[in-house]
């Protein structure tokens, strides 16, 4: 293990001449984004394309008694008005359950509501017109009669016998429940000198991708194929689902994903309105475009979190943690989202609470309930921000109770770095973590002792600053254990096909996709390094189910660790193929040759023997000059899926330094630090920027973002003026440090880096606020987001 800061790590198997592994290579093709020459789905237009807009239920729960489209059909530009019942003739409903989440249940969800709307914002009718504006005009002329039903909105009472059951066929409003006990929690609590109990609340928030969800579906009856341009994270998964629910064969569906304006887990799910757009294309035999507007995004993009966690920790006066207990309740809207389900986040909270700590006395219950609000599902760092904030909130409350420094209590309880492989309190398996080294690195990086002294000095002047920490673990590189074992056709493996072109450049087709993370760069770096060409000569092809190996896409921090390894191995395989041909041309043994910087060289000494373009010229245009029996194979494909470890856990620690204005309740973020260990760092700049972006998303959850509903299930702040997102002026500079513990599961050794920032930021900000206010005797704040009014209430000022 060694700490790196933007310098190439020393890596044996990866330490090839001309290696790009560990280098901050700029992303290829990024200039199209800076020049306004990208192609997002919202930019796509096709011949005969029409636009769809949806009439959406204004009620959280209502029977649809009639739909009168007479006036809408006469509106200028309107091509068709289609109800849920009519659309159900071309697309079947779906149910979001997985068999490995024991007992999870949900009801069939239609592309457009049939008979009943279950949340405010659910589509009840589609209007297709020449333009989006004309489609919206038509929507205003569709007359829908509703009979309002009782809206179930409060998770706390969702399971009460007196509460209406949203889906009577399911018997109750319980989607999923998991109870887990490990070690001896009762004994652990009995042995504690102090038991601290509190309730953490995590408000609903959402992804607010800058580009809203967008789709263009093009059914071509001539060749019986559906081409779907979609801003998705998982093209092959969507190919399967479109085919399945439209009654097509998978090969009849092509999903094309070019540039995607942000995803963060928002664009990895099945959305009713997108399914409707695809079905409408089939029904109307022409391309149909749907781009959600911002209001639609707020009421239909999956929401996240919305957890209430009662939590307890037992601790001895010497700082030893003796037990943990949590009781989590989360409301997920009226349907479990397809196909990944809305049970995964609560399941993750159970798995991840207690994180990287030794204490194995743990009991947990998580209940997931239906309600008449927008659907909730997996969003960046799924479950981690909750489990981490609960765990780290408890740890710092315990430290305060016994008068111990918050870093010291962690030193005494984190699993030692030399004790791996190990397991966390819930039984999750850790191959190798570096929590102590990360903590030591953070301590030095932030000058912790200096900050404490400054904090103390300022307190005497009436300025209240706080320091808060959050150690964390993060699930990355998921195997089939995540979804595949539960019956979902979501690929855990990924593939890469590399091809030498006729001038010595390389094409790499990969199943992972790009939404800005830099997957394209990482794949290019892997191929350039393992094959042996300058990175400028690698072109990466992604986001097209017709033209890439079958793969999972980009989510759960898997693109670099899984897609990167496949690309690395494919590059190696192509090198062997090319050297076989070069060997026959040069009358040399292939094993004595290598490829460096685009030239075949002697492995020993590095003397240049023949250029790649000359090898390609001979192989493609003068194969007659090769010895008899030599057939050049200038394409190679390799696949990879983690097999030894179900998940590759990363780890790290974050710190927040902030100031609370005790008169206004405003929080000013002064600085944020994150030290993380994602194994081999393929591109330090990309890793740092994933961390920074993730941290800010976590800060948004901690301080600003909240989907506020009233008791009738109406979203009160579904616009960007009222729903606050982090903007530049409120955000601090963020320092990132690394510890490198490669996974032995792959040759590359890379783990994921996309979600670490979001996992730890909310907990560290929460702890910093409480650290700032502790001398004032404020009750600990545990209800996110920490808005000024909550802070003033904690201070007893309002």
């Amino acid at each position, binding site marked *: 293990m060694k700490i790196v800061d933007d310098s190439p790590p020393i890596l044996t198997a990866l330490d090839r001449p001309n290696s790009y592994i560990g280098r901050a290579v*700029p992303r290829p093709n990024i200039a199209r984004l*800076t020049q306004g020459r990208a192609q997002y789905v919202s930019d796509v237009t096709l011949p005969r394309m029409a636009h769809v807009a949806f009439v959406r239920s204004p009620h959280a729960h209502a029977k649809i008694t009639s739909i009168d489209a007479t006036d809408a059909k006469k509106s200028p530009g309107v091509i068709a008005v289609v109800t849920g019942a009519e659309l159900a003739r071309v697309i079947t409903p779906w149910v979001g359950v997985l068999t490995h989440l024991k007992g999870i249940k949900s009801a069939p969800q239609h592309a457009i509501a049939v008979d009943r709307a279950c949340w405010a914002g659910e589509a009840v009718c589609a209007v297709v017109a020449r333009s989006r504006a004309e489609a919206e005009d038509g929507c205003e002329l569709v007359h829908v009669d509703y009979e309002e039903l009782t809206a179930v909105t409060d998770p706390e009472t969702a399971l009460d016998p007196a509460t209406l059951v949203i889906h009577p066929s399911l018997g109750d409003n319980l989607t999923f429940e998991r109870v887990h006990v490990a070690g001896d929690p009762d004994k652990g609590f009995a042995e504690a000198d102090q038991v601290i109990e509190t309730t953490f609340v995590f408000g609903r928030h959402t992804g607010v991708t*800058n580009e809203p969800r967008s789709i263009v579906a093009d059914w071509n009856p001539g060749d019986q194929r559906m081409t779907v341009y979609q801003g998705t994270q998982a093209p092959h998964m969507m190919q399967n689902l479109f085919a399945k629910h439209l009654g097509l064969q998978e090969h009849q569906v092509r999903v094309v994903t070019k*540039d995607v*304006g942000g995803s963060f887990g928002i664009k990895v799910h099945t959305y009713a309105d997108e399914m409707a757009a695809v079905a409408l294309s089939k029904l109307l035999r022409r391309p149909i475009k749907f*781009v959600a507007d911002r209001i639609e995004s707020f009421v239909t993009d999956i929401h996240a979190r919305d957890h209430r966690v009662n939590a307890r920790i037992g601790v001895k006066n010497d700082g030893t943690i003796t037990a943990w207990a949590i009781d989590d309740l989360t409301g997920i809207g009226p349907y479990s989202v397809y196909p990944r389900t809305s049970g995964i986040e609560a399941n993750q909270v159970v798995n991840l609470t207690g994180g990287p700590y030794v204490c194995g006395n743990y009991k947990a219950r998580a209940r997931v309930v239906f309600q008449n609000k927008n659907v909730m599902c997996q969003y960046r760092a799924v479950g981690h921000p909750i489990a981490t904030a609960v765990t780290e909130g408890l740890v710092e409350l315990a430290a305060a109770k016994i008068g111990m420094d918050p870093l010291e209590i962690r030193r005494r309880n984190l699993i030692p770095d030399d004790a791996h492989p190990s397991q966390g309190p819930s039984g999750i398996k850790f191959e190798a973590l570096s929590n102590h080294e990360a903590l030591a690195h953070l301590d030095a990086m932030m000058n912790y002792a200096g900050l404490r002294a400054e904090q103390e000095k300022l307190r005497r002047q009436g300025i209240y600053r706080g320091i808060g920490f959050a150690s964390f673990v993060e699930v990355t590189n998921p195997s089939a254990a995540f979804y595949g074992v539960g019956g979902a056709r979501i690929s855990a493996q990924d593939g890469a096909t590399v091809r030498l072109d006729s001038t010595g450049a390389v094409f790499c087709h990969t199943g992972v996709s790009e939404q800005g993370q830099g997957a394209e760069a990482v794949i290019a770096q892997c191929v350039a390094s393992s094959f042996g060409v300058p990175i400028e000569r690698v072109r990466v092809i992604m986001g097209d189910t017709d033209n890439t190996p079958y793969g999972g896409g980009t989510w759960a921090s898997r693109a670099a660790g899984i897609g990167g390894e496949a690309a690395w191995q494919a590059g190696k395989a192509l090198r062997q193929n090319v050297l076989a041909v070069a060997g026959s041309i040069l009358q040399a043994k292939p094993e004595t040759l290598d490829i460096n910087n685009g030239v075949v060289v002697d492995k020993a000494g590095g003397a240049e023997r023949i250029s790649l373009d000359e090898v390609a010229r001979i192989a493609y245009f003068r194969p007659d000059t090769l010895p008899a029996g030599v057939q050049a194979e200038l394409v190679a494909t390799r696949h990879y899926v983690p097999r030894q470890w179900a998940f590759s856990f990363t780890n790290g620690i974050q710190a927040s330094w902030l100031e609370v204005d005790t008169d206004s309740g405003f929080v000013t973020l002064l600085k944020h630090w994150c030290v993380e260990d994602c194994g081999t760092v393929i591109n330090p700049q990309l890793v740092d920027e994933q961390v*920074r972006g*993730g941290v800010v998303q976590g800060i948004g959850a901690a301080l600003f973002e909240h989907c506020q509903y009233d008791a009738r299930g109406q979203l009160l702040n579904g616009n960007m003026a009222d729903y606050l997102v982090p903007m530049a002026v409120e955000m601090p500079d963020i320092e990132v440090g690394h510890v490198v513990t490669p996974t032995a599961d792959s040759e590359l050794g890379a783990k994921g880096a996309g979600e670490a920032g979001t996992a730890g930021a909310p907990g560290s900000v929460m702890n910093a606020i409480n650290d700032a206010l502790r001398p004032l005797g404020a009750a600990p704040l545990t209800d996110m987001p920490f808005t000024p009014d909550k802070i003033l209430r904690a201070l007893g000022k309002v």
Partner: protein
Amino acid sequence: MSDMRCDVSLTVNGEQVNETVDARQTLVDFLREQLVLTGSHVGCEHGVCGACTVRVNGLIVRGCLMLAAQCEGAKVETIEGLSDTGEIADLQAAFEKRNALQCGFCTPGMLLTAQELLAAGGVPSREQIREHISGNYCRCTGYHAIVDAIEAVAQQRAGGGK
């Protein structure tokens, strides 16, 4: 409704444009749909996110809060125009080098906003940069890299180089 139409004449990226538009059409929809200049993006359509930022008569505006019909005689410039003239080539290069963009959806608007600050001259502080770009929402980067890139270009243009 769509029965109100009007003619507009304006220059867009230096080219004369004469078009008939719906009175209700926003400038950004006009640019994207009628002129197929898709570099300006539609993020929120209510003036908060800044993805539609374009320059009208030398000042940056929200393309979603201005109507095309208001642009009679105006000089409109978009990311496509600024790219082709080379006016912001250094800023674009700095964004690319520093990875000051991820998905890139906010980037055209962010670049136009940054250029307005930089064109005022001097080397703004990081706080001033953050303040100036605070009408442009970026969900990906967390802003740190964007501030770095703008700061680096300010120093370069001031002759300081970095």
